[in-house]
């Protein structure tokens, strides 16, 4: 019983981090320039339409479906939904249950939505250079669990930005091949 509570507390502990202070909200983080460099590529073209439709095609190749597009803003949003099951989590759930003598059932990730937001915009006056910025993120839905007598209902959401540079490199590699142009970094 005590062990169960302790384990549950440990597991839930990351929910207790101090909330972000208002003064820090909407302030550029130290990592923002690094993220910018990863998410932005520059293409020497004046044809924004072609850049956008090629981007949409690459997103489709990656299995995403276009959900929203605004031509005037050079804006695309695409998503795909997949299973989020990982065997590792099931093992952890089993051993946590064993250790807590069945008092704690850890919720595992069940379902995820992977999304991409893309913005293409001219970066010089005559519009001969365009930058493309893409951001990937995912939303994960968790299954149910239990901590002592407290039932944890399913459906809790967790969201995270995808910061794996390889994913971004792959996207831009495909895009530059699609528009027959070299992608420059900033």
């Amino acid at each position, binding site marked *: 019983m005590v062990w169960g509570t302790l384990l549950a507390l440990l597991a839930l502990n990351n929910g207790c981090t101090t909330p972000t202070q208002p003064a820090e909200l*909407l302030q550029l983080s130290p990592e923002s320039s690094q993220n910018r460099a990863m998410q932005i590529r520059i293409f020497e073209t004046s044809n924004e339409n072609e850049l956008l439709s090629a981007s949409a095609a690459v997103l489709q190749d990656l299995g995403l479906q276009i959900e929203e597009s605004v031509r005037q803003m050079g804006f695309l949003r695409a998503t795909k939904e997949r299973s989020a099951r990982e065997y590792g989590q099931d093992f952890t759930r089993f051993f946590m249950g064993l250790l807590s003598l069945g008092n704690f059932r850890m919720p595992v990730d069940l379902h995820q939505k992977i999304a991409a937001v893309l*913005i293409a915009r001219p970066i010089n006056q005559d519009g001969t250079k365009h930058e493309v910025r893409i951001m990937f993120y995912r939303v994960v839905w968790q299954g149910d669990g239990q901590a002592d007598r407290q039932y944890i209902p399913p459906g809790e959401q967790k969201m995270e930005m995808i910061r794996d540079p390889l994913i971004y490199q792959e996207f831009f590699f495909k895009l530059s091949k699609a528009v027959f142009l070299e992608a420059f970094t900033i």
Partner: protein
Amino acid sequence: MEHKQAVWIALLFTGGLFLQACAPPQPGPNLLAPTAAQMKLRSYQSRSFEATDPSQAMRGVVAALQDLGFIIERANEPMGLVTAARFAEPNYTDVMGITVTVRSQTEGHMMIRANAIYNNKPIEDPKVYQNFFATLERSLFITKE
């Protein structure tokens, strides 16, 4: 005698308490009038920027939001409207939303207004909006070049 008096006073008190519930509150003439707090909040949330092209200002807003890690949800150029959201990392369960409107004010000036919410509660701290406009100013400056 004293006892009786006390009972009467108690009765009067409770009667008074109930009476309040009987009188329906009359809507005052300034029910929908802006309050001082609202006006103050609006002034925190708005800022005028030197820009001639609304489209360029919009793109500057989008770039600033992206720099701040926001995910653009909706963008409407003719209306001058951008809606974005982000999770307040490292708290992955906290969500922050923002709506930015861009309107032409006078010749060469754009009025930009931002409304931010944190877990569905409006942010009323002027510091947060100052931070936003500082980032936006930089982004608009870069876009202008």
